[in-house]
């Protein structure tokens, strides 16, 4: 009798255990279903998101092309109108700024072309450019037209014009670049020079530009006597997306182009701070042959 009772109890226990296991299994299945559903939704969302991003890029590219068309036509009309004016400082200032508009437009457009994998005329033979005249011409251009630095007042403008830039580079620094991009360093150096000029000590401004030839590259150095903010440095080195530091927008936009284009051109950039001398050194290592 006892034995039968024990077997019944055992049977009951096993039944309960089986019910519990069944319940667990059901719960597990439900959880898995939810997980699968969630994964599916996430996947669908990411596909939709990717599609949306691609449509946005396409639209943005088209919009930029159209914008460039309008800007370029206006550049021609404006240039032609100003050309008819008698020679003056204002006339030359207008040309400098129009040229800057053209260069910004081109750099943004080239970037879009490259992002789309449609670099212009990618079969074109590379051309040789010399970095030295790019420096000298840009330094002269800034000193002649300090308005590109957006000076606060006439005194600061005069200070920029009179600033003695220490230069130290070989007679010739030739590099090979794809023909379509032969003007790219023109603008990149201009932006870095602008950054150096502006970030100088108000009373004793110092800017030095040096180029050192290495076996397969040129190391280009832009030195100025104001210490670069830590946040600014992290951002410029691509380590942080936080751009809440205070620098002029005109400089920030130029440096964004420098950051983007150094990546495209496979140019290494670095920042060194020499605290005791209050110096900031931005260096670019430019390969002698640039291949995209």
């Amino acid at each position: 009798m006892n034995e039968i009772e024990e077997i019944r109890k055992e049977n009951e226990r096993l039944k309960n255990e089986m019910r519990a296991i069944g319940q667990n299994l059901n719960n597990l299945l439900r959880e898995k279903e939810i997980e699968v559903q969630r994964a599916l939704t996430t996947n669908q969302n990411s596909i939709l998101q990717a599609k949306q991003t691609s449509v946005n890029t396409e639209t943005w590219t088209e919009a930029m092309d159209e914008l460039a068309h309008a800007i370029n036509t206006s550049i021609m009309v404006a240039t032609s109108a100003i050309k008819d004016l008698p020679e003056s400082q204002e006339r030359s200032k207008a040309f400098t700024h129009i040229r800057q508009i053209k260069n910004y437009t081109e750099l943004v457009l080239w970037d879009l072309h490259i992002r789309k994998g449609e670099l212009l005329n990618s079969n074109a033979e590379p051309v040789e450019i010399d970095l030295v005249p790019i420096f000298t011409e840009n330094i002269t251009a800034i000193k002649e037209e300090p308005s590109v630095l957006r000076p606060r007042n006439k005194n600061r403008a005069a200070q920029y014009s009179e600033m003695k830039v220490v230069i130290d580079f070989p007679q010739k620094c030739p590099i090979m670049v794809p023909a379509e991009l032969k003007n790219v360093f023109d603008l990149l150096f201009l932006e870095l020079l602008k950054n150096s000029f502006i970030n100088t000590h108000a009373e004793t401004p110092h800017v030095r530009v040096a180029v050192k030839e290495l076996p397969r590259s040129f190391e280009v150095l832009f030195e100025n006597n104001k210490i670069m903010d830590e946040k600014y440095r992290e951002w410029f080195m691509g380590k942080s997306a936080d751009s809440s530091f205070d620098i002029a927008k005109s400089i920030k936009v130029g440096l964004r182009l420098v950051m983007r284009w150094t990546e495209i051109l496979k140019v290494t950039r670095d920042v060194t701070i020499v605290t005791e001398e209050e110096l900031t050194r931005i260096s670019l290592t430019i390969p002698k042959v640039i291949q995209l």
Partner: protein
Amino acid sequence: MKPISVFIADDYEDPREILKKSLIDFGKQENLEFSITEADTYSSAIQVLEEKARQKEYFDIQFIDIDFTGDENRGKADSGFSIIEKAFQICQLSIILTFSAQFKSIKLHPVFVDLVKRGLVADAFDKNASIDNPEQWFEIHFRRIIKDFKENLFLWDIWENNNTILTHLKEHSVTKDQMANLQIFSEIENYLDTTLMLLMNRGKIGAEHILNRSLLQMYHRALEIFCEGDKSEKEIREIADKNVHAVAAIINKNDLKFTRDDRLSALHKIVAHSASPISKFGYKVNNYRNNAMHQSKKFDVDTANILFGSLALHLYMVPGVKPKIERIREFYNNNSKLSGAKDLKELMGYVSFQIN
């Protein structure tokens, strides 16, 4: 020099005005006169081109904008490409330049590159490039175009002569068999088109010596198949043997002989075609070709030899009709020291004095 005819097609007035002013200023500097025609819509541009073609007037230089979206009727962002295709179809020799604000755009640039590759577009006048050198961007760029234009003026005579040849051959069969005639016509048409295209682009090709040899070879081949016509080998040999003394007298070469082997030569065919005074020029083309093919002869074919070949072809294919030589003569006057210049002068003398 007569005025250089220029066509400007752009749907925006300001760039057209800027271009016109730049052309006039350039003309004053260089002592050149321009006759300028404008179109401000896609359809008016096509209409102007068709109308001019009907009048057999062709633009020397054309500035074509690409984006015609400012033309609210039929203008599209790439209408300029259709205008360029039309302009080239009407006249291959016209120098076509894009005059665009955004030919580098992602959608337009591949088409532009293709047109350049196919030889339809000679160069791009990029509207925003003016700021790179505001004082001289047009002059510097356009001076190169004018230099090419002047150096290539003689091509207009070749083009007109080619058209005359093809029209004549359409109306006068070379052979009785229609299919054979069509084949000969197509081959000659192909040679004429190719030689013109190569001559137009010779500056871009380089390898001048090889190019000239190939050009001469093509003129020679066109002459050979024309002279052969539908004559059998036997007929050619018989007529050639009959004509050889007369031709020898014309070229003042009493020992004129055909090749000793059994091969029927191009000379057989040329001599069999005619023993008239023009056989002197056919003989010369054959002689140039033989010398050019044999490296040991050290014969460098020059542009004067090429022009000679082109004119000789006209004399054979359109008998009794004067080919155009006005601009070829200008070329001769500027290049009289070329080794082929003496023969070219003689041929032009024949055209001027022996053909009415």
